[in-house]
């Protein structure tokens, strides 16, 4: 007996994929400069070997617009999957990757970077900021892991992880505040704007790095979808079903950190996506993790692409920080879904 629910899950994912493609097309066409289909076709033609240079427009498309559109989707996917993993791990729907220190650690790494380069007055290589942010994210999350472990049993309960995450978050966020305080005005503003997120630094290097971690991390996470399902009915129950809960926590947390920290490192802190995206999917089709993880990647990409379109078009030709837009775009979507379905926790 095949369950009907399984099929409509596949259908939904396919529809989401279609929507994502359409939005990507829009993202690639519109912006500070608009590209017609003919121009895009010619620009892609420069990929062929033996085809030199290209006009400025074509090179803008290939070097700036296209990587940005792809990075946008990848980052949205990373944040969405991170949110789904965290909520599954903590069995709590109001959790997002930032809660275990990843985002605040990354923000702190970036803040230190801004302040130090300002104080020591050296011009930084573009790749050094992502490294600093990633390092910060990893350190903060690792701290949460270690501090949350019960010394006697070597296990870390979900509650301990949440509480420790809160504490470490507070620590690193006040660290960011302190950095902003001692920073001179230009650096303080850099910190502020980094905290609002931006995709303007997108290049192919960012795309390949974030692509690797996001796609690889998502595929790996799918292998643990079944175990995360079991975890949904309780830690004890999961143990009875043969899940090594402690190992699962470590693995899922690590995947989450890598996915989110690397994405955050290139784009700054973009909040709210990780929180809202899994909710939207659960409202439509329930919480089964295989569907949820793939769906979160797709919807995350959709949401962020939409947000980026607004960010780039609203104040044409200037840009809005994307973090502002994700809040403004995400909330109405969330609320309208809440009102249309009965969402029982």
């Amino acid at each position, binding site marked *: 007996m095949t369950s009907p629910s399984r099929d409509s899950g596949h259908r939904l994912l396919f529809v989401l994929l279609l929507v994502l493609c*359409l939005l990507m*097309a829009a993202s690639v066409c519109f912006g500070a*400069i608009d590209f017609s289909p003919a121009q895009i076709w010619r620009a892609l033609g420069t990929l062929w070997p033996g085809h030199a240079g290209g006009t400025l427009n074509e090179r*803008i498309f290939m070097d*700036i617009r296209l990587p940005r559109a792809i990075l946008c989707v990848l980052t949205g996917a990373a944040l969405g999957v991170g949110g789904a993993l965290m909520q599954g791990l903590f069995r709590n729907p109001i959790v997002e990757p930032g809660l275990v220190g990843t985002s605040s650690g990354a923000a702190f790494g970036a803040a230190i970077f801004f302040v130090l380069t300002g104080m020591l007055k050296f011009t930084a290589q573009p790749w050094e900021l992502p490294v600093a942010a990633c390092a910060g994210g990893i350190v903060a999350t690792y701290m949460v892991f270690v501090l949350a472990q019960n010394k006697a049993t070597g296990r870390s309960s979900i509650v301990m992880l949440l509480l420790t995450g809160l504490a470490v978050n507070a620590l690193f966020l006040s660290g960011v505040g302190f950095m902003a305080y001692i920073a*001179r005005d230009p650096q303080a*503003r850099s910190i502020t*704007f980094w905290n609002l997120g931006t995709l303007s630094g997108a290049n192919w290097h960012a795309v390949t790095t974030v692509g690797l971690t996001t796609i690889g991390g998502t595929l790996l996470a799918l292998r643990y979808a079944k175990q995360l399902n079991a975890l949904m009915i309780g830690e004890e129950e999961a143990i009875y079903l043969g899940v090594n809960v402690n190992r699962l926590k470590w693995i899922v947390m690590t995947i989450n950190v890598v996915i989110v920290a690397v994405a955050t490192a290139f784009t700054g802190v973009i909040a709210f996506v990780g929180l809202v995206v899994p909710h939207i999917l659960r409202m439509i089709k329930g919480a089964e993790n295989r569907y949820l993880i793939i769906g979160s990647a797709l919807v995350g990409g959709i949401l962020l692409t939409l947000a980026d379109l607004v960010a780039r078009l609203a104040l044409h030709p200037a840009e809005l920080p994307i973090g502002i837009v994700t809040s403004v775009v995400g909330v109405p979507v969330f609320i309208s879904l809440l009102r249309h379905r009965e969402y029982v926790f």
Partner: protein
Amino acid sequence: MGRFRPLAGFLLAALLVTSCGRFGRKAASAATGPRDVVISQLYNEIIWALGAQQSVVAVDWSSTYPPAIKSVATIGYHRALSAESILSLRPTVVIEDGNVGPPQVLQQLHELGVPTKTFTHTNDTIPDLEALIREMGAFFHKEARAEELCQRLDRQMAASLEAVKQYHDSPRVAIIHYGQASNVYLTVTGHGGGDAAGAGQMIAWAGGRMAIGGRSGMQRLLSPEIVAEANPDVILMTAFGYDKLGSMAAAKTLPGVAETSAARHNRIYRVTEHQLMYLNPDTGANVLTIAKLIHQPPSQ
């Protein structure tokens, strides 16, 4: 493989979209002359003073002087730029003062062959500023006007300094500035620093003394201890912070201010950043303006 999937989707979207005529929007046609994008308040001020603004097609959000500049298109905040915004204006050169971010944006511009320019001189001192004016004059082929500006600056400086000699008092001045990034009120220390590099010098030329002792050129958070300890005779507040409060009475409610000699004698004045905080072509006249303010007899 992933790159080509959007193609299928967008071909569909393109059909829908070509009808709404957005592709008619002009990404600016062939350049008929220089198109400058200038990302620096100081540079813009000097360009307008030189009369070279016709070639400027866009500026950054922070460039707000002179008032005429507000009708020019802007490309965003100078530390949160995007290469595409700049490129959509088809600049022939991007002029920046080394204070732009994020760092990738400049790199992207270079990779796409867009020239950038930073002038070698800054406005730390008057001679430095004049060298900058001349340098920019040469760049924009307004050498004669640049010379005029320098001479006017020298003349006005000399006249102002002479006029200041008539004042025999040397009021102790505190400057309160509003830091928008950290959302707090700051005081400028003896050496000024950063955005306020000129403030200390301005006060000295205007015949006053900086009331708040300096650490190495930083601005310090306004606190009751600092202000009370300094007990300035005059308080100058920059425009944004003053306008946020709305009136002198409201300004007196800032921590520690009410007990100062300045507050008691109602010697709290509003100044624009242009007048006080940094050296610029109008500094010569500004010195006299500041001097008149701070030497004003106290009103009861």
